[in-house]
């Protein structure tokens, strides 16, 4: 049985201060790393002969407009099927410098997940084979999941905000 402590110590041993912020919300090992080290960290976990973390469960983004200097976060959920061990990695990005290397060379399923994150937040994935919008219409010129944009359609004219409590 792999424990969070064991994996955390191994990562600190290999990557020293490039990985930080270790915590265990609800039992899931979570830590932060930098954009330069994210692919080496993923590769280390993939190639590790014992851990064999070879399943990318999820890849998504979050927007924190209040955290200056770390407005965007890219969150990876990984799973080692052999040991039934899950972990979460977060990478924080500044809003003026929103790009991060792609994970598609390691995991093919990251392809669409990165396109979706780009579509919603505008986070660019360097080296992605085809980084275009996937869910929204191609002509859309803003990134809708960012907190500054409203949920409702800005061009609608029949629903009065006052009647809908907005």
């Amino acid at each position, binding site marked *: 049985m792999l424990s969070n402590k064991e994996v955390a110590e191994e990562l600190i041993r290999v990557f020293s201060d490039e990985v930080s912020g270790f915590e265990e*919300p*609800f039992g*899931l090992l*979570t830590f932060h790393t930098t954009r330069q080290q994210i692919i080496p960290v993923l590769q280390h976990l993939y190639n590790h002969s014992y851990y064999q973390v*070879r*399943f*990318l*469960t*999820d890849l*998504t983004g*979050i*927007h924190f407009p209040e955290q200056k200097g770390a407005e965007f976060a890219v*969150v990876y*959920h990984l799973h080692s*099927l052999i040991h*039934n061990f*899950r972990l*979460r990695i977060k990478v924080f990005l500044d809003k003026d410098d929103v790009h991060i290397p792609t994970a598609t060379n390691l*995991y*093919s*399923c990251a*392809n*669409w*997940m990165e396109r*979706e994150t780009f579509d*919603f937040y505008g986070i660019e994935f360097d080296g992605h084979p085809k980084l275009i*919008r*996937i*869910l*929204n*219409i191609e002509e859309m010129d803003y990134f*809708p*999941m960012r907190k500054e944009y409203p*949920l409702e359609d800005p061009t609608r004219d029949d629903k009065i905000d006052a009647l809908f409590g907005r």
Partner: protein
Amino acid sequence: MSDTIEIVPKDKLQPAGAQPELISELTTLNLGPTHPATHGIFQNILQMDGEKIVSGEQTIGYIHRAFEKIAERRPFYQITTLTDRMNYCSSPINNFGWHMTVEKLLQVEVPKRAQYIRVIMMELARIADHIVCNGILGVDSGAFTGFLYVMQKREEIYEMYEQVCGARLTTNMGRIGGMERDLSTEAIRKIREFTKTFPPVLKEFEKLFNRNRIFMDRTIDVGGITAERALDYGFTGPNLRAAGVDYDVRVMNPYSSYEDFEFDIPVGQSGDTYDRFMVRNEEMWQSLRIIEQALDNLPEGPYYADAPEYYLPAKKDVYTSMEALIYHFKIVMGEIDAPVGEVYHAVEGGNGELGFYLVSDGGRAPYRLHFRRPSFIYYQAYPEMCKGLTISDAIIIMSSLNVIAGELDA
């Protein structure tokens, strides 16, 4: 006469019987977004070399309803209605998966009876989902009769949903902390009757397809994928199990008392369409087994957790007791705050690992809610699975993958 005869230089002479070079170009075939194999709207642009598919590219997003953005506006109990509409063939699984995520965040312990009732409804939903998938696979390969037989059973499942929650398809079943009402005697009677009347129908359905020569010729070795490629593409659920990997979230990270039940995980060998069909059939048998065990061992007790801040009190208490009135007001007006934190919870949906990543900042609505939707992730592998096959094979592969448009685009 010599000026009409062309002298070919020696090095350009073709040997006798050589075929001239044919200029070929690929045709582009647009499969979708509206196509008769009614699986939802997504488009595949296929490059064809005559009859064979060379490559393909998908366009999705034709039913993008911005669930994740809506979820940032709705209180926790209103998001259940959104989760219904993701994988709409098996709504209770989505509902309970969401409720379990919130219960994990709030650290609310759901009593055993409610957990068993949830298991029964989730397994019924899994049977309903596989009925649609396998029935439509039959329709797409030309066999309409099997579909009609099993859709009757789906109507009976709808009746059971109505007994529990009142709705047929988009169920909004359960509440945060348990169920909204106990299983009535009528519901238990209907479920027992279903466990007795479904096996003959499923056997008949299997007799129509399993050893049917035409069906086997159409589906064996069509759309296969190896276990390594499947894991690389993030496959989960019946599609991954057909490729040979026995990964089932119910066994690996058990939730809602699944560890109390005894069931097998059917696993295929080559990951082709026939294996996916057989894995889903066998999963329906295993789901029936789980339902029977849950019904036989249904424990007594409350059907909701003792968490008055999150679970609406009974109406008669609201009219008579002061605390219940205050809690009712606070819950409905949204003045109860959730704890700050982030949680990821996964359930075994009809298509695979359905995950909910919830980031809460303490308000009444989530700060960020992300759905890990299995259809979205494994549909990426579709062009690779279709390479070198014909259009009819491509249609069969799409139906056997069970891509549900609501889950694809969310």
